């Protein structure tokens, strides 16, 4: 009889283990960047530009220097003398650290004050006088490419206009043929509005340069400590071994905490100059108007259709507004992220995508806000185009999708834009979702309600997301290949510590990585401590974003556990006095194949690694694994929403939402469901209220939580989650796929499709997100589409 340990009891794979990190957070004993106090620490504040586009005539900081308690005032000219006025971005562009020649967006960093106290630093910022010469502002891609548009990046050579890139992918000729053969072409124009990840904790850093040791330690809010270390080494020209980046507890990231921001750089320089620790903690306005935004893409989409509903081809053109500096954090090969993952779940013979990126007088970014590099836009465009195509054909939304899905027997499948998907049960997920929402019954209810003047709608969205970049052949950031790592040390008593190159921000790595070790080695999860975020102790990794932790770092944890198990097998053979070939493994225990009662536990092997190893064996029980994934992982999901729209006010309410997520094997189902609910809420937010726009002068509308609306517990609907469909990833060591972002990626289109479905028959083809009551009311009242694109100047 098996003497294996019970996997669920030890908190292994599939256990909804309570989270380890909670015990400090519920006591108020988290350790976030702003909680850290170092001896002699000073405080930094940033003076930001009130104008979107202006030449700087002069900066007079003399009154700031006069305020008692002020230690240093930094301006762009001072940065320039140290070659630090500009820094490289993660997308091979440059970004101003402190403005020298011009300001290029409202909220741009112009000067910094370092003082004994944050109140004094704020006072001193107000005492700095900047003389600006205003310039016309550009707030959308149409203006950016208009004849005679002012060139925003006149700092760059070979930049005669505002175009950053033109990029294309797919089969242009084949797509042209598909459209020539089409019975019907369905067209749609959309704007995915600018949004901001907006974790509740803003960005911040404490730089601590020690002249005596020449070592720079930076505590900071970063999702990718090792990338930051490489960037700091480049920018500050310090050797990498003299830089230690520590990412303590992070109060939410969602992509906002991947890039390098001027505040980090200024606090580092200030600490080097003053030889004291310098703390910078951003306020919310600073966070919302200057740090990495997301989305802001315009789509011109076309679907070529056969009369019977078969999709023959897809054509997409996207205009991406990147703001003043191209600082997207994304794989360098793909200029518009993984937008070409669109239609990966559909069997489409030909597709072609063109994309143009432009500068504007808006904050830089294009960060992957809870998504794998613009997959959110890809899936939103896809599902809006699918809905419009089905409507144009007069086909049922569910039937049209089912007819065009990649079938279960078609894997591995080459997507129309060249990705290779490997697994999924798309139709089955759809069926589970339709049953959960009671599709037929709702359609009847909808028709009856319509007859009485009530507007009900049902929206379907499906998504498959390429998660877990690399492989390293195709994915790199600034040339650094996108792999990840794990380091596992098993102590003599069989307790262990695992470190990875990822960095948790609420995803629960401290809980789940221990579960993977428990699954692989049979060591109880509570005996495994997880540590991340310190570049002096963690193995090199690319960090946590794009749902890559479980697909890449989680895989590395499994692989390093297997290396440990392989060594333990040798130790077990030695202890059992048999040859290694005669040793069998069951969870937590090796035994002799011919005598299963004769065995040793993994803990006994650990003791032996330090006290009784065979001759010639290296002592100790630790190892490191670097994991380069063979492919992305491809989770799939179906989200279905029903809504009621009030035609008199334009207000819409969610009646029911069901989510069917197939993310392969779930390590901790409780945590997975938490991720899905969080993602659905952000999807609801984007569809309903959450956006940042600009007036014609480039003033940011959405610079605080009074203007930038986030849903509260009151507005947020309830969600019904389904986990019936499990398609393990064929190449991931434990069969897991990414999940953290799926719902935020696939969710928005479900809400929008539901409202548009409620409006069917009115002739309204599109309302851009967010579907604010006034936009919905305008669409219903005037029977017209409503665009959300920022305005051009009325006097233009």
């Amino acid at each position: 009889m098996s003497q294996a340990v019970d996997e669920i009891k030890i908190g292994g794979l599939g256990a909804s283990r309570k989270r380890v990190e909670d015990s400090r957070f519920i006591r108020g004993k988290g350790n976030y960047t702003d909680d850290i106090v170092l001896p002699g620490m000073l405080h930094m504040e940033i003076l930001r530009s009130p104008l979107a586009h202006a030449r700087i005539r002069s900066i007079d900081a003399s009154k700031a220097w006069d305020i008692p308690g002020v230690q240093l005032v930094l301006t762009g000219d001072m940065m320039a003398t140290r070659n630090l006025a500009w820094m490289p971005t993660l997308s091979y562009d440059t970004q101003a650290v402190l403005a020298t020649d011009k300001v290029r967006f409202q909220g741009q960093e112009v000067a910094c004050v370092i003082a004994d106290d944050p109140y004094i630093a704020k006072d001193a910022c107000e005492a700095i006088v900047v003389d600006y010469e205003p310039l016309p502002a550009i707030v959308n891609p149409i203006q950016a490419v208009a004849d005679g548009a002012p060139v925003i990046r006149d700092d760059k050579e070979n930049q005669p206009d505002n175009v950053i890139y033109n990029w294309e992918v797919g089969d242009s000729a084949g797509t042209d043929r598909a459209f020539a053969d089409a019975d019907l072409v369905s067209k749609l124009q959309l704007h995915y509005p600018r949004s901001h990840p907006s974790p509740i904790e803003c960005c911040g850093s404490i730089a601590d340069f020690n002249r005596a040791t020449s070592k720079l330690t930076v505590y900071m809010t970063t999702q990718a400590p090792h990338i930051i270390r490489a960037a700091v080494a480049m920018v500050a020209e310090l050797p990498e071994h003299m830089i230690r980046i520590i990412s303590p507890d992070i109060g939410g990231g969602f992509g906002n905490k991947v890039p390098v921001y001027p505040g980090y750089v200024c606090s580092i320089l200030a600490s080097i100059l003053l030889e004291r620790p310098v703390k910078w903690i951003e306020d919310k306005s600073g966070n919302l108007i200057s740090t990495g935004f997301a989305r802001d893409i315009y789509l011109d989409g076309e679907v070529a259709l056969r009369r019977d509903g078969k999709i023959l081809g897809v054509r997409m053109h996207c205009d991406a507004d990147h703001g003043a500096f191209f600082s997207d954090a994304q794989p360098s090969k793909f200029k518009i992220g993984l937008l070409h993952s669109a239609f990966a779940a559909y069997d489409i013979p030909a597709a072609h995508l063109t994309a143009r990126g432009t500068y504007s007088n808006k904050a830089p970014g294009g960060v992957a806000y809870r998504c794998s590099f613009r997959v959110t836009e890809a899936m939103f465009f896809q599902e809006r185009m699918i809905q419009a195509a089905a409507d144009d054909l007069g086909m049922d939304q569910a039937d049209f999708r089912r007819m065009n899905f990649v079938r279960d027997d078609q894997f591995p499948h080459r997507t129309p834009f060249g990705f290779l998907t490997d697994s999924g049960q798309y139709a089955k997920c759809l069926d589970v979702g339709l049953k959960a929402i009671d599709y037929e019954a709702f359609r009847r209810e909808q028709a009856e309600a319509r007859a009485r003047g009530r507007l009900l709608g049902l929206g379907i969205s499906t998504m498959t997301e390429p998660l877990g970049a690399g492989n390293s052949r195709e994915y790199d950031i600034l040339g650094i290949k996108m792999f990840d790592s794990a380091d596992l040390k098993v102590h003599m008593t069989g307790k262990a510590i695992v470190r990875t190159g990822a960095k948790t921000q609420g995803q629960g790595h401290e809980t789940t990585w221990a579960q993977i070790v428990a699954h692989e080695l049979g060591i109880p999860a509570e005996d495994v401590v997880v540590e991340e975020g310190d570049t002096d102790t963690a193995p090199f990794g690319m960090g946590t974003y794009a749902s890559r932790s479980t697909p890449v770092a989680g895989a590395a944890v499994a692989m390093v556990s297997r290396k440990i198990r392989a060594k333990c097998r040798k130790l077990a053979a030695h202890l059992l006095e048999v040859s290694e070939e005669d040793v069998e493994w069951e969870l937590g225990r090796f035994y002799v194949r011919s005598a299963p009662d004769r065995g040793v536990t993994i803990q006994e092997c650990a003791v032996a690694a330090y006290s009784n190893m065979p001759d010639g064996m290296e002592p100790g029980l630790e190892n490191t694994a670097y994991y380069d994934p063979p492919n992305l992982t491809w989770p799939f999901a179906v989200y279905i929403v029903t809504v009621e729209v009030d035609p008199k006010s334009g207000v819409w309410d969610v009646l029911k939402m069901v989510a069917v997520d197939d993310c392969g094997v779930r390590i901790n189902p409780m945590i997975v469901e938490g991720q899905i609910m969080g993602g659905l809420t952000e999807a609801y937010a984007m569809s309903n209220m959450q956006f940042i726009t600009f007036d014609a002068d480039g003033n940011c509308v959405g610079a605080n939580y009074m203007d930038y609306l986030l849903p509260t517990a009151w507005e947020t609907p309830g969600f019904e989650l389904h986990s019936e469909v499990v398609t393990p990833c064929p190449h991931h060591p434990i069969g897991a796929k990414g999940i953290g972002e799926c719902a935020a990626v696939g969710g928005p289109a479900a809400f929008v499709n539901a409202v548009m479905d409620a409006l069917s028959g009115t002739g309204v083809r599109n309302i851009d997100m967010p579907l604010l009551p006034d936009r919905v009311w305008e669409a219903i009242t005037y029977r017209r589409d409503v665009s959300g694109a920022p305005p051009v100047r009325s006097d233009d």
Partner: protein
Amino acid sequence: MTMVFDDRGEETAEFPVRRIKFTINGEKKIAEVEPRLLLSHLIRQGLRLTGTHMGCDTTNCGACTVLVDGRAVKSCTMLAVQVDGHSVETVEGLATASELHPLQEGFREEHGLQCGFCTPGMMMAAKSLLEANPDPTEEEVRWALSGNLCRCTGYQNIVKSVLWAASKMRAASGE
């Protein structure tokens, strides 16, 4: 709090200071504060109780929620001098040395937190609710927490956590 400034040979600047007396988590304190000092900064920097977080500075996010005389207050929008003579409770006052508060247990049991940043404020707002209404409906919990933002959880589990705590507290009080 002692402040030391560089002597630049000028007239020493005047730093108006007010002396206040208040109670924090049951302990009596005296502090000398600038009149403009925010309560949240007194708590975080003066008392080194860093469980009270600051998210937005504009009274919207609720991460800094504490109780003043038992009522939930956003401490970033109250001046420290305003608690003179009053009683303040923070997240650090929830647990005893040996026992967690039912709200703390509830948040762990129902996975009511992810990054943990909004959690102390959520729990304090919930404590204020449960003291006034020991048996709230889901809707009442949602309304009571509508001044507190969370970006991770989607609130569903936060609501469950509060209801879990309410149930446990009622059982403990013998209802």
